[in-house]
């Protein structure tokens, strides 16, 4: 059984933008290990002969006509956050990486 490395767990947490406390680190490492084991179980039983299935059905794709339905009251979206001001969503400044 392949064991998941600590660095992998840290990397995954970073990719998911989630901080891990020490306790969480332990419990989530276990979760990742479990997930990995499930994946390995599947590997043993893989049948390459069969096509992939992403969806229960794959009927004809649904598309729509190119018609605009303008929103009457866009303020209702802006009111969803207190961090909306002067027409913009505010976020902390992004520190540019040095060139």
């Amino acid at each position, binding site marked *: 059984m392949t064991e998941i490395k600590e660095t*992998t*767990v840290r*990397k*995954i*947490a970073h*990719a*998911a*933008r*989630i*901080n891990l406390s020490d306790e*969480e680190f332990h*419990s*989530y490492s276990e*979760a*990742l290990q*479990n*997930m*990995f084991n*499930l*994946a390995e*179980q*599947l*590997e043993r*039983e*893989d*049948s*390459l002969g*069969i*096509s*992939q*299935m*992403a*969806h*229960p*059905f794959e*009927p*004809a*794709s*649904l598309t*729509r006509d190119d018609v605009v339905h303008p929103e009457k009251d866009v303020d*209702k*979206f802006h009111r*969803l*956050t207190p*961090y909306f001001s002067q027409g913009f*969503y505010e*976020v*902390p*400044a*992004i*520190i540019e990486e040095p060139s």
Partner: protein
Amino acid sequence: MHKKSIVELSASLAKAEISSVELTQHYLKRIKQYNKNLNAFITVIEEQAMQQARLADQRRAKQEYVTPLTGIPIAHKDIFSTKDVLTSCGSRMLSNYIPPYNASIVEKLQDAGMVLLGKTNMDEFAMGSSNENSYYGSVRNPWNPDYVPGGSSGGSAAAVASRIIPCATGTDTGGSIRQPASLCGITGLKPTYGRLSRHGMIAYASSLDSGGILTGNAEDTALLFNYLACFDPKDSTSIQQPTPDYTAKLNQPLDKLRIGIPTEYLAHDLNPDVLNALEQAKSIFLSMGVTFKSISLPHTHLAIPVYYLVSCAECASNLARYDGVRYGYRCKHPKDLTDLYFRSRSEGFGSEVKRRILAGTYTLSGSSYDTHYRRVKRMRHVISNDYQNAFKEVDVILGPTAPTPAFRLGEKLKDPITMYLSDIFTVSNNLAGVPGISIPAGFSSNLPIGIQITGNHFTEAKLLNIAHQFQQQTDWHKRIPEQFA
């Protein structure tokens, strides 16, 4: 009043024996009385409900836009967007989120004249099988408050089982309607994937998520399903097929029916009471002229791994939008953008959600995407083929809904994998997109046991017919926990 079925209540409303206002007041009173202990509701909207009830009464009085559901109270799982009403999805992340629009399902039932009383508790982002993962606290099983109601639609199931609401919507990604229905002793339908619109339903795993309904019996389910099932142009995965009248064939005899019980289900480590309930159900069906056949779903053991890999991958992606920028929880005083992302997400999500996000991020990450995700999709096809082969031999498949009755609160919290296994009989339906209904079929020391009937795609009418016929012969579905009688 609360002991009547929706069909009966609808008849009383039609004959003006009761009004929607009375009915609504009655249920609001029951919610007030019992919810404190059950914790089934996150939000109760008394004033709006009364207003809608008055409107429903007016509609009935004027005979304008009256449907059988006009004036009947309902609750929505807190995963369905309700305009101007908190839609938290059981999460701190959305504990301040008031949607500016209605989910299609909400809109449809509102158009039918149903009266919305509130939003039900649930496992955070529908991730869980016990309803212990809610930011708003655990829900109690009405049959025994020390036990879980199942999840993730645990609030809906507990509310319907205690008759503090006649019906409630739910969602089912791996069993989240059927398993709590089973554990609470009510009827829960997970339809064919795409039969109900997902528009406005907050996503957990898009290719598995199904909206559905929890009620006291199959006949009520059929009635509601008539107003829920439809094609929705706002959902690309919605099915563009006309819907039949689901109540039309409820009374068809079952004598030509062929039911299969998968050998794999029986080989599983089943609770003896659950097995007994299944045997009993079988003999009832036999007495109705049904033919039984032993069948095989040879890849059942793969369902759980495939389910977790698919659902976690999709969950990691679907939940990437919660970054604190445009709505939802934002951490206090972020140092910079990175801090905003990390802290908003770490503080906003609960531990099970984070666990699944990490597992999914792992599944989707560069090195493992090819090996894992593609493989998983192939295996999904394998599982789906099992069903198609089975449906060549039988009309429907019968099995337990869950391997055990309800378990104690906290019992499985520390052990996610055992918790995941409580979905063993339900997840395959979601992977294959086929419908399933859980109906009450017995008890184990005063805790309900459910059985599940699974049919091929679009066979909801058939499933409801079978469930209804079963309920003509049994009275499990009529039982209410003493305390709530």
